[in-house]
């Protein structure tokens, strides 16, 4: 739900000298959609996400968003956050451009706009990038290539046809595939981040391409649906599957061998970094200039890179050996 946190004065004064000024800073954390477990992990205090960072710095944080992952559902929420006197917005953009007029008007009012997870490149102060776009694209192809020995037909189960980050990752995947001449990308299908649709399009893939060797699904809903479908003796071990998934969703399939490895970053850390940077920007302790360096609490030192972007780190590869160390 909409959670508002504000630190008690005791802890804030001990952790930050400037708590008096931080106290009045309202930060709104606005994920794409509420009720999505990925964002819950990224934002909540319990998991050490964005709200934890905000609380730690003595500011007031509120998580809010619409109930559907669309700009028209997210936009009124952003607008009302501005109306309510936000000093900083932490936004995962449902659309790279649709939010811009609103976000621009926010910045014009001196509000710091930090995007995380999904960027709106032309209308934000800072973007906290979970992993470099190119790295996700290339590393997933590499992971799959290793499993199928660099040859055979592969397909991609994407989220929606218009999802920016998906399309960017797929672009890099196509480039990386040039390295593996014996691997051919035969189809891209869209599961619309709906388990039933994702399942159905994957079924179609299996029927249309009986010789399919591997599937990449760079979306957590898609990979879980595909894994559930492949989790039968008929397909297990015969069709490789990788992509972006959360450890909890994938544990079963990694344990029984349906999936060997997949990647993700730590969403809590992503949120934490974004929340931390947002408060510092609102306090004018840092600017968004390239080369600016700051210490982000438990995560250590970060430097702002080109295009006003901070990179969280390389994507993390989960496999049988490490997956049980994670719980999100």
């Amino acid at each position, binding site marked *: *739900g*909409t959670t*508002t946190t504000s630190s008690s004065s005791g802890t804030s004064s001990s952790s930050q000298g400037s708590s008096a000024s931080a106290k009045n800073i309202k930060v709104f954390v606005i994920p794409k959609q*509420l*009720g999505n477990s990925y964002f819950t992990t990224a934002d909540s205090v319990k998991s050490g996400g964005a709200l934890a960072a905000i609380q730690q710095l003595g500011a007031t944080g*509120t998580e*809010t*968003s*619409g*109930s*559907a992952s*669309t*700009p*028209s559902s997210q*936009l*009124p*929420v952003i*607008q*009302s956050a*501005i*109306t*309510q*006197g936000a000093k900083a917005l932490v936004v995962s953009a449902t*659309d*790279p*451009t*649709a*939010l*811009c*007029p*609103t976000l621009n*008007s926010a910045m014009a009012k001196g509000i710091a706009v930090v995007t995380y997870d999904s960027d709106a490149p032309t209308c934000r102060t800072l973007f906290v990038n979970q992993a470099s776009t190119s790295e996700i694209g290339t590393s997933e192809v590499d992971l799959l290539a290793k499993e199928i020995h660099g040859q055979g037909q592969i397909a991609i189960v994407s989220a*929606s*046809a*218009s999802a*920016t980050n998906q*399309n960017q990752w797929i672009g890099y995947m196509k480039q990386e595939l040039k390295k593996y001449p014996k691997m051919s990308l035969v189809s891209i299908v869209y599961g619309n981040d709906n388990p039933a649709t994702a399942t159905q399009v994957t079924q179609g893939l299996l029927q249309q391409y009986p010789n399919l060797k591997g599937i990449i699904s760079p979306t957590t809903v898609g990979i879980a649906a595909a894994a559930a479908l492949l989790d039968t003796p008929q397909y297990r071990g015969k069709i490789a599957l990788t992509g972006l998934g959360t450890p909890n969703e994938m544990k079963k399939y990694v344990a029984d061998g349906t999936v060997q490895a997949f990647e993700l970053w730590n969403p809590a850390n992503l949120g934490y970094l974004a929340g931390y940077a947002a408060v510092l920007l609102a306090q004018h302790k840092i600017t968004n200039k390239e080369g600016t360096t700051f210490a982000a609490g438990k995560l250590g030192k970060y430097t702002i890179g080109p295009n006003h972007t901070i990179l969280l780190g390389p994507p993390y590869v989960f496999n049988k050996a490490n997956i049980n160390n994670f719980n999100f």
Partner: protein
Amino acid sequence: MNDITTVPNLDSGKGATLPNTQANTSKRSFKSLLVWESGLFVVLVASVIGGSILSPQFLTAGNILNLQLSIGEIAIMALPLALIVITGEIDLSVASILGLSSSLVGYLWMHHVPMSIALSVVLVVGALLGLFNGVLVTRLGLPSLAVTIGTLALYRGVALVILGSNIVSNFPPSYTSIGVNSIPGFDISYSMFVFIVLAVIFGLVVHFTPFGRSLFAIGLNKEAAAYAGIRVKRTKTTLYVLSGVICALAGVLYTFRLSTAEYNNGSGLELNAVSLVLLAGVSIFGGRGSILGVVLAVATLGTIQNGLLLTTFPQQAMGVVVGGLLLISVFVPNASLIRRQFQEFKFKKVAKKRSNSGESMGDLETKRILSSATGGKGDMLQS
């Protein structure tokens, strides 16, 4: 006029059994017509007061603009939809027409078609989409619910074909500012301005012209309407075309407000539009409703949604509020009926002496039965 209602009585010589108090009865019927609307009005006033108590920002100009922006396109689409529902049909493809129009604007702009031409093309295409719905419903005699579930998928699919994975967002700011700014000098957004203008026109046409009257007649009994010389099929087709054009217009406004054209723009809004129409007091069975109701429903729903956004109310529960509002709004006019039914139920428990258990039936219900004995079966007979 006494001489019609009175037939002298042989036994008692007493006059008419039918009291003839024209003056106060016409006032009463006017009142009963407005029960729904006044109910909505009360809710509206309450939510405005509640909103301004809960949040100091509520009544600021900026917030009121936000309120208008977020409900604008749905409100616009709800107007022609209300007319369609009054005639006893439905259009679930409205949001898909919006999405298709948005995609088309994007596609044309992407291909360097001047905006004025692009917009005219989109409106024409909107009309054609509506015409397609209308032809399937009226000429092939298919149930509109089924047809528009089909075109809901079809039009959205065509939008996907047109735009694919492209997102068009490089619209000139002169257009996109329409989507976010208010009309200079007023605190009214462009979309709300369009809504108000349309609402006035619709209100006049629906309530004060023969065409408007024919909509209600069609909704209540389309066979009798046809016998009275009303062109039922043509009227319905006209409404679908109108709905197509206006949804296309809403699509354009939506595109500019979000400065984004993509194929899934506005997906799922059809149920919101239908909710709005029902909240407005338009009977889903046709023949009842008013444009004033639509206006009040837009204001009420917009206010409540916006007010809740300004509080710490969990947004996930917005559905609970919208649904609850919908239920309450239909319940209130029924409250007396339910109460009466309950009383009769108690009365019958006592009165029942020789009868076995059976369905109890109140006079009011019976009245409804007898009055609606035409049974709305026209559809079945025709199909």
